[in-house]
């Protein structure tokens, strides 16, 4: 009766694979050398069309985004707030599929060296088939994969298949994660570790949570991987303080909101690039991790 590959239950964590010399690792090394906070830009692919996304991503990379997360739209994005929900709906209405997003990666890779991460809910990956997905994503030139609703416990097969193709597996850590879970998440992650700044869904907020520095310090006890902090990061003021505690800031809803407001793809690309330049400037001029640590 079953015609989709069932996800295999997991056994103890395997040794970390992924690419220590991949584009993601290289970019974070460079950032570390200059003591500069990185900027990870999330963009929902296919919103409002894959052609527009191509243009927007190139503009974002040109403006200084260090890593691009391409969001694969899903009908039921439980981890996302209203802004990315609406973007997902627009992307699905324009006919975007996971296969289409991978094809976009291929087109982008011919034009830019910016690290590209596919950011998806698990079901579209599972329906394509994990093996077929990993092979296609790697061949297209993707560097990493993040599956929002896949935690290490359910990810053994996924990890070994994705690593075998030389892609990094990025997992999420959350404020509610116990020390045991942080150890497991660190063990299973490669490329960087994505720390969710607060309990909640994606979306812009005014202030960073007060307990974020302590949370980031706790996570660092378990990993040497670069730490990217996301959820609710949108303003230069956020970015300028994050330099003291993280290696990168993830900005998503704020960029997606610019795309939503823009009348044309040209306008969207210009608005996203402008936002990234402002945030990047704040990152360069703000507290760097090196200066924070030397105090």
């Amino acid at each position, binding site marked *: 009766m079953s015609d989709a590959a069932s996800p295999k239950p997991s056994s103890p964590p395997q040794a970390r694979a992924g690419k220590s010399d991949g584009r993601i690792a290289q970019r974070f090394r460079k950032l570390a050398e200059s003591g500069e906070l990185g900027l990870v830009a999330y963009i929902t692919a296919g919103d409002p069309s894959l052609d527009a996304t191509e243009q927007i991503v190139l503009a974002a990379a040109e403006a200084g985004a260090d890593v691009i997360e391409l969001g694969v739209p899903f*009908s039921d994005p439980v981890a996302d707030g209203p802004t990315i929900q609406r973007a997902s709906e627009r992307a699905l209405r324009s006919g975007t599929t*996971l296969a289409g997003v991978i094809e976009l990666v291929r087109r982008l890779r011919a034009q830019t060296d910016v690290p590209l991460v596919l950011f998806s809910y698990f*079901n579209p990956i599972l329906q394509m088939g994990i093996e077929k997905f990993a092979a296609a994503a790697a061949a297209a030139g993707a560097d990493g994969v993040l599956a929002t*609703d896949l935690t290490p416990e359910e990810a053994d097969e996924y990890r070994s298949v994705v690593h075998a193709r030389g892609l990094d597996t990025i997992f999420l850590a959350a404020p*509610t994660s116990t020390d045991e879970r942080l150890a497991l998440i660190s063990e299973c992650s490669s490329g960087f570790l994505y720390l969710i700044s607060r309990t909640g869904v994606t979306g812009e907020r005014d202030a960073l949570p007060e307990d974020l520095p302590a949370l980031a310090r706790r996570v660092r006890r378990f990993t040497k991987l670069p730490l990217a902090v996301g959820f609710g990061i949108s303003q230069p003021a956020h970015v300028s303080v994050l330099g003291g505690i993280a290696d990168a800031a993830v900005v998503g809803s704020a960029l997606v909101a610019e795309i939503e407001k823009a009348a044309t793809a040209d306008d969207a690309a210009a608005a996203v690039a402008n936002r990234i330049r402002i945030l990047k400037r704040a990152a360069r001029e703000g507290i760097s991790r090196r200066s924070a640590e030397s105090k």
Partner: protein
Amino acid sequence: MSYVAHVVRERGRYGPYGGRYVPETLMAPLEELERVYAEARADRNFQAQLDDLLKNFAGRPTPLQFASRLTEHLGGARIYLKREDLLHTGAHKINNCLGQGLLAVRMGKKRVIAETGAGQHGVATATVAARLGLSCTVYMGTEDMERQRLNVFRMRLLGAEVIGVDAGSRTLKDAINEAMRDWVTNVRTSHYLLGSVLGAHPYPMIVRDFQKIIGEEAREQILRIEKRLPDHLFACVGGGSNSIGLFHAFLSDASVKMVGVEAGGRGKSLGEHAARLSAAEGFTGARPGVLQGTYTYVLQTADGQIATTHSVSAGLDYPAVGPEHAWLADQGRAVYTAVTDQEAIDAARALARTEGIIPALESAHAVAELVRRAPEMKKDEIVILNVSGRGDKDMETLARYV
């Protein structure tokens, strides 16, 4: 055929189905819930408190009624009705709400969140929250708020906040998405009181355990009345909580056949029905996949987007099914079938006129399948059908069809 899922295997797997597919933020609370539930089960006081509420507040045990006129009308098997419709709030949902409500109190959570389709789970949650002194927020698709208006009013009267969800198909699936977003945001202070055998482990196990009292009572009652086990069990399957509740106590009784009845809606193509396990009858679009925390049969497109569904019954109008049902179906331990909107409406009328019971439209689906099959059964065969809820909430819909 042996069925060995009485003990949930590691991380809540039923064969390949089940599991725990959620954003990381929810992992620690799910682990906490699993731990607290295990402690509660071992705690005699907890069970005594639950038993007292089930008896004196909800009205258990419910009768197992011999449906003499329906039996005569259909001319086949002897039909017994398990009368969950007689429970306080009008459906089996209260069984689970009382259990989880006590768990919320045990965890020190002052607020419960729920999703609701037909409104029965929302009403039961609002009721239990009022009884236990918890605050309560219920998410409900705006399409469902329209067709189950009376239940919206009931929830508000009970002090619950009802929030309309205007996304997707504006039904149960979308209400669950929004409830999960609330939970992920307020996870430290709120318990998500999920209403069916859906979602990430341990929910399918916990809800099943709180609902299995239906079958345990029915088994004891039929043995007392007929001095033997039934031949057939019938129940409707939305998420699958009333059906798993009836089936579970009989899983080791190899002679007892089980029929789960899904919503066949108004057609067999994707989008027109909510039949996840009835592919053999030509209902298209169901494949194993991950939705809202669990791996199970899901109605979806080729590239993994979740499909919209249709059913006249809000409580069955959902694209996935509880993972334990997926496993029971694969094993052939239970069989699943679907009836149309119109058949369910006709069956509701038939039960009303033969037995004086107006069933919920959900339960009417099970009645409709029984109406099909009972005439071909022998007169000494015994059927138990779960009347999971009463139809008061469906008067406006029924009035349009009848």
